[in-house]
């Protein structure tokens, strides 16, 4: 298939449909509105269901219901809307329901603004909802990767029976880049995907007795039962941490004097600065976490080569992933941070200047 020039918001929607998503519930919000608009246009064409809910709370609970039927289901929003979904996220995680949530982040806190930001890292990777749970969390940095993550997210959700969040931002949502889609799953293939869940999900009870009675619930009033449930969840999360760390290495070598760590949109800008400094003969590498939960701690530790005197974290927030980098670095070298907030994206020139200061030190 040839490449199409597309906005990130539209590309993720198209890719989700191709990955077998036939149920989508959401409430509009800038800067992700093209996503919901695309779904409104395209879902009827594939005999899917598009429903604009009356609120984000309602949409996430529709996701709960649909996921409970073992179907591929998605919702999307932007930062303030994700906060409204937070209760539902906790229930989904508690009931172990596979689904995909897209967050096209904007500036916060509160209503904030509608420009790109990365202020929801803590919310996405450390909780957001209440209780002891984890979301698998993927962070794209290009429109192509955003689209590719649709099928990856659904596969991970199915594999681990866990909600998966794709953590993008307004820039990725609004930007157009060439994208190449994987072939669309056929109706038969989508049907088969649903069958992997029949041992636990709600599905038609054809023979009339209660053999297929399945309960989907996050309420366990007996502490001993809940204790065992949370221990089981914890075992699952440990397995995910073992299997699903993903990162990109950029210009990593033993000569590196500085190691940068950046994710999503911010990493694109850092790459530009690294390219310019590289042309001037300086050696800087970057680790870009692709999955931000589970976090690639080992990859960062390993990338601290013999000559690295400084780790530099760049984010579009006041320092959130920074905490994870510090855990990975274990105090071996100093970790610096610089970020921009308010929906303002730093420029390659600004990053370059910060890195040059480091070389002078």
């Amino acid at each position, binding site marked *: 298939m040839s490449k199409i020039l597309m906005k990130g918001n539209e590309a993720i929607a198209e890719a989700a449909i191709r990955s077998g998503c036939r149920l989508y519930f959401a409430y509009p919000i800038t800067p992700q509105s093209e996503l919901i608009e695309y779904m409104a246009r395209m879902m009827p064409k594939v005999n899917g269901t598009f429903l604009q809910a009356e609120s984000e709370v309602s949409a996430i609970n529709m996701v709960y219901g649909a996921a409970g039927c073992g179907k591929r289901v998605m919702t999307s929003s932007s930062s303030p809307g994700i906060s409204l979904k937070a209760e539902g996220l906790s229930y989904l995680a508690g009931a172990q329901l596979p689904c995909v949530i897209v967050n096209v982040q904007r500036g916060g806190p509160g209503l904030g603004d509608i420009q790109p930001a990365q202020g929801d890292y803590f919310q996405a990777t450390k909780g957001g909802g209440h209780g002891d749970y984890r979301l698998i969390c993927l962070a794209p940095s290009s429109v192509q990767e955003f689209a590719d993550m649709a099928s990856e997210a659904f596969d991970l959700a199915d594999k681990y029976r866990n909600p998966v969040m794709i953590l993008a931002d307004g820039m990725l949502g609004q930007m157009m880049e060439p994208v190449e889609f994987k072939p669309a799953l056929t109706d038969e293939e989508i049907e088969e995907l649903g069958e992997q869940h029949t041992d636990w999900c709600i599905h038609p009870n054809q023979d009339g007795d209660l053999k297929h009675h399945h309960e989907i619930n996050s309420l366990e009033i007996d502490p001993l039962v809940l204790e065992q449930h949370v221990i089981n969840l914890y075992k699952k999360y440990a397995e995910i941490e073992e299997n699903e760390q993903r990162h990109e290495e950029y210009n990593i070598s033993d000569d590196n004097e500085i190691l940068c760590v950046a994710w999503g949109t911010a990493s*694109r800008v850092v790459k530009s600065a690294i390219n310019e400094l590289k042309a001037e003969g300086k050696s800087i590498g970057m680790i870009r976490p692709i999955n931000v939960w589970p976090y690639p701690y080992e990859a960062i530790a390993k990338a601290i080569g013999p000559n690295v005197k400084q780790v530099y974290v760049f984010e579009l927030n006041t320092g959130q992933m920074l905490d994870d980098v510090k855990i990975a670095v274990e105090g071996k070298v100093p970790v610096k941070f610089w970020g921009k907030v308010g929906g303002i994206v730093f420029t390659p020139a600004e990053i370059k200047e910060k890195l040059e200061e480091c070389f002078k030190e």
Partner: protein
Amino acid sequence: MTMEMICAGFGGQGVLTIGRFMAQAGMKEGKSVSWLPSYGPEMRGGTANVSTVVSDEEIASPIVSFPDVLVALNQPSIDKFAPSIRPGGILIYNTNMCPNGCKRDDIQIVSAPMVDIALEIGSQMVMNMLAIGVIIGKTEVIKHQTMIDEITEYMKGRNPELLEMNLKAIQRGVDIGRG
């Protein structure tokens, strides 16, 4: 080669479309492209701009700080973006709406009364196509023929009766750009 471009003007002048077609044509020629619009509570009459990158290599940042090419359809766009054009870079502007022009002498400047020319061709709506032509004529970053094919494919499904006027505007622009 990498060309980083900013197109700016009033909302409704079609600046986002300039970037979009440049990116579309660049992609057709197998280049890496990115198109990043300003977005926000903007409307007709407000300001709009778009950063477009066309490159033979993978594009790192889609954000353009120091453009190789600035297309300014009104004076506020020159005032805002012309100071950051790379030395030796190109400024293309519309003299009808940029009374003060640009004072820099370390860049190449191509200017034309784009509103007048567009009206002469048939409609102010083709001003952005004229600008596309100027970019191509001046930079040759993509082939004129690729753009003709792109516009033809785009228009034939929507407004086939307007195709000729658009192609004419691009041709005029290419002639202006080549000087």
